[in-house]
């Protein structure tokens, strides 16, 4: 599992393989605590963030998610997010970096649910809630700047790369009429406006609701 770490330079991180563990080992040695006086470069929290998103995603993909695992990952995500929000000078890994930890196209529903969860996170953080998960005007090549908009999680750009391949077809056979609800009425208006966006998948409220139901459905008594 843990292999011998190879000292890497900062710029090499951008081109590394997603499955490399050495990077993590290197990061592990550089503790994020303030007293890490002997550590080299500070830990880039965005990479941890991506990893956490991936874990969340993976955990949600399972038939019956392990609640403890999910809660711990979400809480870690919140910590990372809050620390990223506090660091305006956080290093900006270019766009390939956020993508690389994520493997081959994950299921679209899970991306949405993750984004829904992030949406919830941002709600909880008390930040602007009119920013729904998807309308992101900036092109993907622009590196996410956490300092600019603390409410918008940084690696959404990566998610949208994966979502841009028209997802409507995946949902054709799902009848979501039972799951219509009014939880996110603002999304109806927003999705109507995002048709022209290349990256906006135009997710419907019903799809979101279905996914939310999948999440919450296991938890209703």
């Amino acid at each position, binding site marked *: 599992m843990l292999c011998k770490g190879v000292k890497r330079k900062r710029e090499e991180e951008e081109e590394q393989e997603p499955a490399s563990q050495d990077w993590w080992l290197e990061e592990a040695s550089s503790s994020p605590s303030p007293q890490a006086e002997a550590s080299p470069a500070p830990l880039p929290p965005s990479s941890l963030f991506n990893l956490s998103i991936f874990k969340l995603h993976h955990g949600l993909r399972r038939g019956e998610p392990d609640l403890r695992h999910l809660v*711990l990952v979400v809480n870690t995500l919140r910590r990372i997010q809050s620390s990223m929000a506090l660091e305006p000078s956080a290093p900006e890994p270019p766009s390939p970096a956020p993508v690389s930890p994520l493997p081959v196209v994950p299921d679209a529903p899970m991306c949405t649910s993750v984004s829904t969860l992030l949406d919830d996170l941002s709600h909880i953080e008390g930040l602007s809630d009119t920013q729904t998960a998807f309308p992101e005007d900036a092109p993907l090549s622009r590196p996410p700047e956490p300092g600019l908009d603390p409410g918008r999680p940084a690696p959404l750009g990566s998610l949208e790369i994966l979502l841009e391949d028209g997802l409507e077809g995946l949902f054709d056979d799902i009848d979501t009429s039972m799951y219509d609800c009014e939880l996110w009425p603002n999304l109806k208006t927003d999705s109507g406006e995002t048709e022209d966006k290349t990256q906006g998948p135009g997710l419907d409220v019903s799809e979101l609701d279905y996914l939310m139901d999948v999440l919450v459905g296991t938890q209703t008594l």
Partner: protein
Amino acid sequence: MRGPGPEARMGVGGCWPRLPALPLSSPPLYRPRAPREVVGHFTEEETEAGERPPGPFALPRKKLRRRKRPRARARWPACTSRSCIALPSRGSRSRRHAVREPIARPPAAHSRRLLSARRRRAWGAAAAPEAGREPARAGPAVPGSRCRGGSRASVGEGAGGGNDIQWCFSQVKGAVDDDVAEADIISTVEFNHSGELLATGDKGGRVVIFQQEQENKTQTHSRGEYNVYSTFQSHEPEFDYLKSLEIEEKINKIRWLPQKNAAQFLLSTNDKTIKLWKISERDKRPEGYNLKEEDGRYRDPTTVTTLRVPVFRPMDLMVEASPRRIFANAHTYHINSISINSDYETYLSADDLRINLWHLEITDRSFNIVDIKPANMEELTEVITAAEFHPNSCNTFVYSSSKGTIRLCDMRASALCDRHSKLFEEPEDPSNRSFFSEIISSISDVKFSHSGRYMMTRDYLSVKIWDLNMENRPVETYQVHEYLRSKLCSLYENDCIFDKFECCWNGSDSVVMTGSYNNFFRMFDRNTKRDITLEASRENNKPRTVLKPRKVCASGKRKKDEISVDSLDFNKKILHTAWHPKENIIAVATTNNLYIFQDKVN
């Protein structure tokens, strides 16, 4: 038969519905039956001339009143086997066992026959010839009283950690090859209250029980070996059609009930369902039926010319496991703990968000005593990770959380124990803060000491011992593998940081033990403050080989015989360990093997 009335509902106040008395004239179970043979239970004066002797089930109860011996009332469905008259009886030791005459003594060659002696010893009857060979091992008899106030601490011989114990390899169970079948992964290990039986549960839903052989003269230098006593499939994979989810059959926990009669009882649970299993022995069977051939076929009554009385004859020992209660449909989330109360009538089961209280006799209802589910699931930040009843106080239990807190609750305070009586939490060390602080503070196991004064919690890197009278910090903290603190990021990436290690006390509460990676396990002596790291591996597996202490080199120059952190195998983890309640015998589970170690006996 009338069931409990509408007033017998689950409700505030914790009033268990009274079971209705069995009506004396209740008809037998509606099942077509051949005429019954009676085995052994009647005496001549109970039968009138020419009348058929009463059978165990068929006739109205009032006739049975003529019996001189009081009959234990069957509380749960009677065994339907025609030859079985061993009705399960709760409560005090049934006298019928003592009255029944022992049959021709079985040959003593088979070591398992000694079980008869064990049973008689437990029953206090006249000592069998084997009694002389039984070890004079003092152990407190299992108390039958409710809600014991006294301490259960048993100071058996050698159960202590004062002097350095030398641990020796004793046995290993399981497949040798490295290819681990998923179903063979051991998921729980538990000794029973006497230590004679050792139960393991695996991912395939099976329970395997090992029994310790009685010591005999030829093996004075080691305690008895553990051999397979019974194997049964406890849980099967299920499919929840409502949610389209499969329910794993993996056994999450096994807990033994104290022994009250000849049979053994244990609770085993998977993610959703708890089952009470009865493990009983049968070493005699009735022979000589009048209407039934030996192979079970029925004879034509007209061909019967003489009558004979069936008698018991010895047979090869058979150990049967039968599910006696199934406690299902009470948990929405995954059950992580079960714990039997000191009143031996109730037990709790805990899942991620709720804890339920059950009565061992009642399967169709349970009380919810803790519920931490938020109204809005988006606000969920904490889950329950373990729960346990206090060993002496039947109203007290604790539960631990994923945030590193332990809450002690008193069921006398309110029906729903959402508000804790005590909250045990250690303030976070600011110098060790990281993104992973919460994950590594998540408690994976909580265990009370046998005395009931202390409790031990296991989080990712340490073992903490708490005094129940002090809530703000633990009284002792032992680092299990502090060298992993700098590797938390990698361990987060490969998910090892979420591993749930268990911990256990020894019989005298002087030594605690827990597992680690690379098949290492650690023991901490609370008195001498010394600790030791040992490895469970098949190398050096000759019995009575003393285990060599291992050492992990955190950084710097690696000394000889030390192993560096980067060489540790994180796939080989010891999550489950158990300590014999009276002796220095430990059971350590690697992924699919069970190791048994004993201290060196001179």
